[in-house]
């Protein structure tokens, strides 16, 4: 392998045919380059998605009322199911897999928050204290909603850093009163929720307060809850069924009626994404390997021509005592060398381009930290060496079969 003569011979032949060597090497380098770019981009998409998920728990579930699709116990199909505080209590009490739970009530009207002469549209979420860990909210100042707020229906609000910046600039917000949809509430906390969605452009109120402000209704818009982190998709589905069953008893709908209440869960969503990315990655490898195969055919072709041109030389070598094995080794080494070197150049260029993209694209939700990690590099190296061996296989056998008498015949 580290035999100077062998390397000398390789460089000797490569130098004699510079253009041909370059074109061959280029096809391999291009293949690897594309593979790295594609895999890196796939990773970029995946990382962006994962980052989006990170901010909310990946074991969360959400339930909202919909319309029944089956008649049940004399009730017609097409009824609207309105979730209420009772549903919250019953699910909390009776479904023991539920770890954290919060209901939400959607305040009707044009959501806005005002302070002094400034009024800005923000999303208003009305929740229970459990919502803090469900959404992975980080408190910056003050406190989140607590149980006393819920019980006493206190008029308090927790605002995001964005809201603070827009309404209060650099001034303190805690203790100030702001107007939310026409109602005056006191700011008791400031939070930050860094992720890709609009979670940092909202204001939290106790759900009971909101219900009170809108006519003392018991209605809730949805339930958010978490199940044990270790839950599999199957487990999540089972819990989902249990919750459906519980709700069907309260609202008198057919437990088999999948459309009466909507249930979403992040485990399923996550799984869907993971499957999507597995398919993308698979697809990328297929394309990459096809491209590399084109490169292999190129190298193989060139090596065949090289062997043909070197017939006489190989004949001389055999006449003075080269074993077939050493001839095969010589051609294979040359082939692996071209392939590996070219592939390595492609690898470096690809990784370099990814690095540039990573550094210079503006941050966005769809593409984050595209990278070709060490596993890909190792895999690519193995692929390259195999490719080189494969490319050299046929030509080297051809070389080994050259008969010295044929090669040495004087024309």
């Amino acid at each position, binding site marked *: 392998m580290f035999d100077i003569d062998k390397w000398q011979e390789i460089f000797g032949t490569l130098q004699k045919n510079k253009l041909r060597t370059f074109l061959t090497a280029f096809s391999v380098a291009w293949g690897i380059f594309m593979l790295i770019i594609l895999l890196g981009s796939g990773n970029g998409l995946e990382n962006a998605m994962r980052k989006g998920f990170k901010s909310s728990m990946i074991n969360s579930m959400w339930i909202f009322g919909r319309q029944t699709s089956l008649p049940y116990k004399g009730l017609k199909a097409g009824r609207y199911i309105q979730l209420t505080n009772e549903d919250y209590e019953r699910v909390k009490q009776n479904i023991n897999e539920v770890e954290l739970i919060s209901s939400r009530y959607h305040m009707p009207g044009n959501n806005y928050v005002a302070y002094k002469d400034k009024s800005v549209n923000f999303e208003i979420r009305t929740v229970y204290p459990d919502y803090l860990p469900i959404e992975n909210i980080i408190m910056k100042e003050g406190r989140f909603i607590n149980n006393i707020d819920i019980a006493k229906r206190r008029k308090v609000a927790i605002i995001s850093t964005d809201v603070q910046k827009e309404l209060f600039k650099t001034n303190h917000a805690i203790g100030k009163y702001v107007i939310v949809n026409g109602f005056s509430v006191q700011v008791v906390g400031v939070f930050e929720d860094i992720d890709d969605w609009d979670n940092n452009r909202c204001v939290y109120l106790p759900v009971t307060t909101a219900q009170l402000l809108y006519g003392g209704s018991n209605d809730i818009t949805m339930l958010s809850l978490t199940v044990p982190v270790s839950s599999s998709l199957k487990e999540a589905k089972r819990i989902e069924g249990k919750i459906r069953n519980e709700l069907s008893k309260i609202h008198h709908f057919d437990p088999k009626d999948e459309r009466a209440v909507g249930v979403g869960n992040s485990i399923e969503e996550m799984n869907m994404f993971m499957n999507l990315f597995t398919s993308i990655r698979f697809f990328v490898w297929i394309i990459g390997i096809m491209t590399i195969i084109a490169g292999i055919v190129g190298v193989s072709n060139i090596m065949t021509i090289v062997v043909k041109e070197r017939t006489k030389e190989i004949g001389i070598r055999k*006449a003075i005592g080269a074993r077939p094995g050493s001839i095969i080794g010589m051609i294979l080494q040359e082939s692996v060398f071209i392939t590996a070197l070219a592939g390595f150049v492609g690898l470096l260029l690809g990784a370099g381009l990814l690095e540039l993209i990573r550094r210079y694209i503006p941050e966005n939700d769809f593409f984050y930290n595209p990278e070709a990690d060490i596993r890909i590099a190792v895999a690519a190296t193995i692929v390259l060496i195999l490719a080189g061996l494969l490319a050299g296989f046929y030509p080297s056998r051809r070389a080994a079969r050259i008969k010295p*008498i044929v090669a*040495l015949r004087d024309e």
Partner: protein
Amino acid sequence: MIKLNNVHKTYYNGSPLHVLKGIDLNIEKGEFVSIMGSSGSGKSTLLNIIGILDNYDDGGYWLDGTHIMNMSEKKAAYYRNHMIGFVFQSFNLIPFKNAMENVALPLYYQKVSRKKRNRMALEYLDRLGLKEWADHTPNELSGGEKQRVAIARAMISNPKVILADEPTGALDSETSFEVMKILKDINKQGITILIVTHERDISHMTDRIIKLRDGIIENKKK
């Protein structure tokens, strides 16, 4: 040293061509022999068989007591490497290697270390008066110099036999005689030399002439 017993060889290219029709030959150690014959007489084929570059169909061939028949490529390579040195009409040097590397090549296939084989190659080049040409590639050398490099290459593995196929065929007469003188000197050191030629004056410089005609040995002349 070289013993052939009723050796036959037929080529099958389209119609069968019976090239060697029963060759009996016995060359003792230290002999300097030439094979003469017109083209098509089978002299090159005979040399190829003796050099284990080609197989024969029938009969027997013993090289230094070893029966050579249907050898594997690997084994044939071993015998060529250790027992035989070749000198060709068109020199057959490797164009991108310099004179020293060309001479050292047989030792490379014996897995002799680079340093040692290059030192030996320089020694042999020195003996043939080519030391200052050691780092020149073949296309920088004259025909005679090339053939001397080739002879050095044939000698470096210290073979039992040197086989030369028209060694002077591409050289002018003055250089031809020089080359023959070198071969003669080598022969004096006890190495058996067999040359194939169609030039009468070249063959007359050897100790024994074997005349080949239509695949059979015509007469033996001491």
